[in-house]
């Protein structure tokens, strides 16, 4: 497990090539996500799929809020749409988001997981199924244990795993629950996670 990522330097051991990034966050997640995604340049080419726990109201402004703050396109995930490169997708409130084996998205209203719908575990586990080792999973701040099982599955299938350092997270329960279940490749503060995402794209594309 590495605990810093200073950016692209000759001393850095090589990162694996991935085709997609999945991100999960709960309490404190809006600020954390903004911080890491703001580092992404225009024409960033990896797709990013995110679950952020929000109240289950019918329409969420998440995509709009992030779109005005980021250089990359942002949208709420629609059922059966094909994942486009360089786009940030948010799971819709009240629906689980899954990735199918043909890299399309599907929504469902199965039971809540850890009282949450969308659930991070469901996104991460289905993403691991679809992408295998060509996937990076990032788990951030949160006050419950959603995502722990999912990120362990990503690791089990050979993907790259990143957990926010709980000491620096607004709510530490979620990263800590993940650490209790598996040892991630990286345990990082937010600025380093941003640099890592930039570097992952440089390698993959």
């Amino acid at each position, binding site marked *: 497990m590495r605990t810093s990522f200073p950016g692209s330097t000759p001393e850095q051991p090589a990162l694996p090539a991935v085709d997609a990034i999945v991100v999960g966050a709960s309490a404190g997640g809006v600020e954390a996500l903004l911080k890491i995604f703001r580092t992404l340049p225009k024409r960033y080419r990896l797709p990013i799929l995110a679950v952020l726990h929000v109240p289950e109201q019918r329409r969420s402004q998440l995509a709009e809020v992030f779109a005005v703050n980021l250089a990359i396109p942002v949208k709420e995930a629609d059922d059966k749409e094909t994942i486009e490169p360089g786009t940030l997708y948010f799971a819709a409130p009240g629906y689980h988001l899954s990735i199918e084996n043909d890299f399309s998205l599907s929504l469902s209203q*199965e039971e809540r997981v850890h009282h949450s719908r969308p659930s991070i575990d469901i996104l991460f586990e289905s993403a691991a199924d679809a992408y295998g080792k060509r996937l990076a999973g990032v788990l951030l701040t949160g006050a419950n244990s959603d995502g722990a099982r999912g990120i362990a599955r990503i690791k089990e299938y050979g993907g790259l795993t990143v957990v926010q350092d709980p000491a620096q997270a607004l709510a530490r329960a979620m990263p800590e629950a993940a650490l209790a279940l598996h040892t991630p490749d990286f345990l990082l503060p937010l600025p380093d996670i941003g640099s890592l995402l930039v570097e992952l794209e440089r390698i993959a594309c």
Partner: protein
Amino acid sequence: MHQERDADIELRLLIEAIYLKYSYDFRDYSGASVKRRVAHALRQFELKTISALQERVMHDPSAFMQLLQFLTIPVSEMFRDPTHFLAIREEVVPLLKTYPSVKIWIAGCSTGEEVYSMAILLREEGLLERTIIYATDINPRSLEKAKQGIFSMENMRGYNENYLKAGGKRLFSEYYTAAYDYAIFDKTLRENVTFADHSLATDSVFSETQLISCRNVLIYFNKKLQDRAFGLFHESLCHRGFLVLGSKETLDFSGYKNKFDPLVKLERIYRKS
């Protein structure tokens, strides 16, 4: 891509076995969800492998009926997405009133919440008496529950809030009798309702209809099966008939996109072109 995992092979075989033996066709359901449902069923059956579940289901029809309860997803509530029902009341009902009689198909009615919501709305608009509602589902246990019209009392407070937001004109409690922990719905609401077993995956159209409501069913289908369902709806609907979908369901990625016009796009209400 990586080699197909053992569990994926077993899952395909199970789904095929169910189709061949019981004619329930889950082959074109969204894979990720089916996989989770089967994993959940395995834990409930206390079995280790999907192959073991297949063995059980093949030789024991009652085990299949049990599995079916896990494979179908009975998440429903009355007047779910109240603004959707408000839009039906305001935008669709005035047009439905121009028909001498109305046939409505509620496809995938599950345990009946959508049926009673629609019946209440139609009664308040003076349409229920000249409407026939076909309420269909693949799960016989859900249909049985829908026919009874008995729902848990603890949900009524939430349903009442939905009802009011949906433009309800009376007191929601006028529509049911409370008994112990249950709300028994007024049986006159279902006088013109026919509950029937029907599969969007294997069955065909059974009637001409003026309105079809199919909400939060199509998300469990892959594109191919979604298109089959849209085809049935298109065939069943009369000229300029109405199709209403769930809040995150859309015709946009379907081959039928150009055969329907959005009437209230945000509420997923379409009209046959």
